[in-house]
Structure formats: structure tokens, C-alpha cells
């Protein structure tokens, strides 16, 4: 399985903080493609959003980043701390 986390406006927009998916996608991009099929909201948030930030296992990642079973993938907007 792959652990998926949503933060801040993404969590609120998509209505969930985390979920698990079977580890059947080779990259973050492939995972996003499947999630986007859930509807317009998901497509907008993950596929068409140029502000999308991605982390894999707590490191900054991109759509090209490879993923495997046990990985933690996170989606969130640009950070605004400090």
C-alpha cells in the first residue's frame, strides 16, 4: 500500500486528510492520474493546479518521482509558515 496525505487547503477541498491506495503506480504522476479520475474536484486539485506541491517520504518530490509500497506521498499548497 501507499500512504497518501493531504494538507491545508487540499485537505479541506478534497474532504480528507489521508488514505491508503494499493501500490500499483510507478510514479507520483501515475498515482495522480488515477486520483484525478474521481471527478472534477480531484482533477482541478491535483492535475490542473500549478501550485501543487508534492513530498515523498518527507522529501520534496515531483510527478516524476518513483514510488513503491510503503511510501508516504503528500499533496499540499505552497508553504506559508514562519
Amino acid at each position: 500500500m501507499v500512504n497518501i496525505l493531504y494538507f491545508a487547503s487540499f485537505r479541506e477541498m478534497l474532504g480528507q486528510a489521508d488514505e491508503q491506495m494499493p501500490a500499483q503506480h510507478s510514479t507520483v504522476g501515475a498515482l495522480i492520474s488515477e486520483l484525478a479520475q474521481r471527478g472534477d474536484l480531484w482533477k482541478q486539485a491535483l492535475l490542473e493546479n500549478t501550485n501543487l506541491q508534492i513530498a515523498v517520504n518527507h522529501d520534496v518530490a515531483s510527478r516524476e518521482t518513483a514510488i513503491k509500497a510503503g511510501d508516504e506521498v503528500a499533496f499540499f499548497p505552497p508553504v506559508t509558515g514562519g
Partner: protein
Amino acid sequence: MKNAEEMYPYIKIQQADFDLTVENAKLRTGHKDIGAVVSFVGTVRDINEGDEVAILELEHYPGMTEKALEKIRLEAHDRWSLEASLIIHRIGKMYPADQIVLVAVASRHRENAFHAAHFIMDYLKTNAPFWKKETLPDGDVRWVDSRVSDKEAEARWAV
């Protein structure tokens, strides 16, 4: 597995407020030959984007936050000769004038401490997974937008 406090003793993510004097003393404990300590405290402004702010709420990504902050901290130690440094970032609800973040850096000479503290803050602003949500006096709630100026501030430090 060790907890975050053991893995990253100079990084603290907490709801509680912090005391500058206490943290400065901790920072310096066990380190010799310190001549300069620069402390940056970020506070909740009562105005943002022209609107009064009533409540500021800080969300973060547990685990990634500590790792990102420690990476920034160690990068500062690589770039400048520093004796010690620490980062405290609060999460949860805060109110105008509350302290949000502390970056404290100790070094032999002031130049290094000033540069390193500034660098850590600029990197923290664009690289550490925190998100601010503000509540206006009329009850409106909005996520704070990231600033272009923060990206530019970070870019200045590129080698």
C-alpha cells in the same frame, strides 16, 4: 525508533509559547567561545493584506517539518562558522502579537550569526511545510497565500 526530540534536539514544533531568554540560555549551554547570538522572532501581525486578523492557525506536516528544518539548519552550519543554532515553530491557534517562530544562532563573530539566522528564516518560509489560516474579525476564514517576495528572498542565497 527515536522520537523527533531525540533525532532533532535543536528543532522544536510545539503549541506552547516560548521564552526568548530561556531558549537563548539553552542554545549557549555547553558551547564555548560564543561572542554573538542573533535571535529572530516572527510574530502574528494584526494586519495582513490590508485586513485585521483575529486568529491565526498554523498547520504543519509532522515528520517532514522536523526533517526540512534540520536540513536548513545544517545547511546554515555548512555555509557559516557557527557554534550553535535552534529553531522553534509553534502550531495551532495564535493571536495578534503572539510569537510564532524563533530562530536563534550563536557564533564567535556577529557576521556569521546575522547571515545564518537570516538564511534560515528565508529558507524556512519557502521550504518548511507549515500553512497559515487566518480568521478575520467578521468570522471569515482564509488560507494565507504564499508570497512572491519570500521566493525572491530565498533565491538570493543560491550559491
